């Protein structure tokens, strides 16, 4: 078991109720829940790996793939959807060769969709890390991505 997991587990008691707090701590430390983490948690809390996966897949806050160095979030709220957000997402999926929710093999980009970023007037909107790009087009986005290593 990797050291950080051990430290995280040691902060919690071995009660099943601790599952969600433990998962939250693991996600905070690693950015995602790996199969290895699930194994460690299973042994410590005495809950089967499958049950842990079941519980964590219920909540949108937990993810099972390693996040990329840069997170790309495509807004698919009503306004962005109307103005071509879905096309952007499709282009990104094709261009990066991954599906929504996955990370490229070189760990450069992680791709996600969000429901609304709250700036509908600027639609369609894409967020890369903390930067918000407005009135995005396919060409603009392709250029923009090159700036992120």
């Amino acid at each position, binding site marked *: 078991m990797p050291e950080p997991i051990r430290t995280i587990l040691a902060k919690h008691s071995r009660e099943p109720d601790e599952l969600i707090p433990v998962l939250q701590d693991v996600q905070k430390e690693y950015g995602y829940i790996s*199969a290895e983490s*699930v194994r460690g948690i*299973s*042994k410590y809390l*005495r*809950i*089967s*790996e*499958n*049950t*842990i*996966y*079941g*519980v964590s*897949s*219920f909540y949108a806050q937990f993810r*099972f793939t390693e996040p990329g160095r840069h997170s790309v979030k495509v807004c698919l709220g009503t306004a962005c959807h109307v103005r071509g957000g879905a096309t952007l997402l499709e282009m990104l999926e094709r261009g990066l060769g991954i599906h929504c929710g996955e990370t490229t093999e070189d760990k450069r980009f992680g791709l996600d969709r969000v429901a609304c970023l709250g700036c509908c007037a600027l639609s369609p909107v894409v967020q890369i890390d903390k930067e918000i790009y407005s009135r995005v087009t396919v060409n603009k986005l392709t250029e923009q991505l090159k700036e992120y290593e």
Partner: protein
Amino acid sequence: MTREKKLKVTIDSRELEVRPNTTILQAARESDVYIPSLCTLEHLPSYGACRLCIVEVDGLRGYPTSCTTPIEEGMVIRTDTTELRSLRQEILKLLLSEHPASCLFCEEHDECKEFQGTIRKVGVTTGCRYCPNDARCELQEITEKVGLTETSYPVYYRGFSVEKYDPFYDRDYNLCILCGRCVRVCNSVRLNGTLSFKQRGKLTTIGPAFDRTHLEAGCEFCGACVSVCPTGALSAKVSKWYGKPDTQVTTTCVYCPVGCRLELQVKNNEVIDVLPNYDSPIDRGLICVKGRFAIPEYVLSPERLGTPSRLTPVGYEVISWDQAIDEAAKRLRGTKPEDKLVMVSPQLSNEDLFVAQQFTREVLGSDAVISSMMIDLGDDLVPFLELVTSSSTFDTIEDARGVLAVGFDSTYGYSPVGIRIKKAGREGALLVTLGACDSNLDMLSETAFQMEPPQWAEFLGSLVDYLARGGKGKVKIRKEWTSDIERISRIFSDSSTNILVIGQEAIFSSGRREIFEKARTLRDKLGWKIIVAHPYTNLLGMLAMGAFPGAKPGEFLKNGDAVTVDLPVIDLAKRKKVVYLIGEGRFDTIPDCDYLIYQNGLPPVASRQPDLILPASLFTESSGTTTNGEGRVLKIEKATEPFMDAKPDWWIFNRIAEKLNKGKLKYKDVAAVQAAIKKQVKGFYGGRKPVEFARINAERATKWLRGAPKQEGQSSGAGNNPSYRGIPLARVVAGMKAIDEWVNTSLLSDKEAQ
């Protein structure tokens, strides 16, 4: 026992007296009032998922689900009003909106069952058999009872591909209605946790973590989920297209010494499926993969021996029983007793074993009736038998406050014992495991120690020393173990009941002699209970029946005195004239011989060809009894006629005896054998209580075995490789082979990782 005061309630204008502390649903069912429900399961707490069991109760708002509402004095309940009926129909419609419904709603529905006469259907002759559950489907039954004849919603097909890559059962989650029974039975009854709900809302699916296969996820293939599924989503590969069985026969499993009760499903004189018996006090319906899935394929194997045959220079020649008996008698006649050897399988019934020993002693005039079990254990046999005959009942685990399992894993066998241990662990008993790799008990254990088998004895020894001295004085313990041993012994010594479970890996480890001795110390000095989880099904019956060298029938049973086992020296390196194998399929343990008689259900696993083959019937084809690991005598019932010309073992002995020496063995049927056993072994069929065995004097263990084949730690036959009558199940049962291969590859990758 104080008598519970009955409650007076009114259900559907009938005044009834019902038990207190039940739900409305239970009370109604016990009073023969039907309320539909898809998610309730006996033995499990209420769940309230399907909403079909709604009722009206005076004074309660809305329509409470009867499975979650406790019954109270004076309740007035209505279960079948117009309102309820239309609500239930609506709920069922919604449930069915994700379930292919062409078998439920069809113009031809009523005629179809009888005639299958329409040309509009797929497969005129086969009927609409796209779902394996047709005609035994709970969903069909409930749709009929709720009175739903059509649906106004479009049926949404989820479009999952059918999962067929795991052994024993297929999964078509397009038919799943997400009632959650399988998830609950896997987690709460089997305490295994392979199945879980994944995602949520309309994306919800059922299965293990990370898209793993069931094998990878630790599935035990116990089939509990298949049994409780109300739809055709889960179905057993072997039996799925057979439809409804004709009859059901209750019998006892002979694959291991637990002695689970089984419900054999019989159709057209074939065992098509096996279901657990939840009322059995021994196993509580917690049967393992072998009993659940490995019986039909074994007994219906295309390799079954069906006719007597004899080896000629150009191959086997089929002969009649008369010729075969003549041939056997000719070979056995005239040879000296020491030139003959009879080997019996511990998986035979008590009756067959009794006749086998009588045949050897009275007809052949020899005492050499042995078993490959004896050779597996070699000179450690006597200490092993001493522990086995004083083994505790499985129930004792339920009261245990501390359990130590050494080399024990119940994934693919010994489930009723394994689940009892897990349950004790979950309910707060101290559970410690000692093994070479991960076991299925580790998840619920307080500590899982992993070390190579040769160190187990030393670890156990340190623990025993520490416990025996009560922590006082100096005990030599390896440094790395000291703190752990101190911690667990503190808990063990505070606990009132401790149990040591010795698993198969421990029995076949090189340090077994020492493990047996430590177990004896724990039992005699510290009051621990011992359970030996060995693979030899009817070992206790073998001892009781005297199918054992130097012990006549009944000698091993409790008559006050301790028994000293005096084994005659057996030299396997010495060539024999005739070897007669009954239910033994492994040839690595038998001596060279001029003539080999092979009496079994399937051909042997060996290059040496038997000279004479006598086809024997299997446990589904003959009656008798078997003795389980606790000493309980359990009935084996005949479910089908024997395969082709196969005959029960006792019948074959009888016939050969008749030829050799008129008048010695004259049994007409199994009942006659049982009458003879009753005379010689007093109190054997005594009833529900286990047969008690005399204490075996383990100090005087002689070196009795000579010329035995070299064994490297593990036994080649019975160890982790379950077999029936000497034939590994993996050889005839496809799923067992898949499991075997998986276990081997995962063991290899574990070793590489280390």
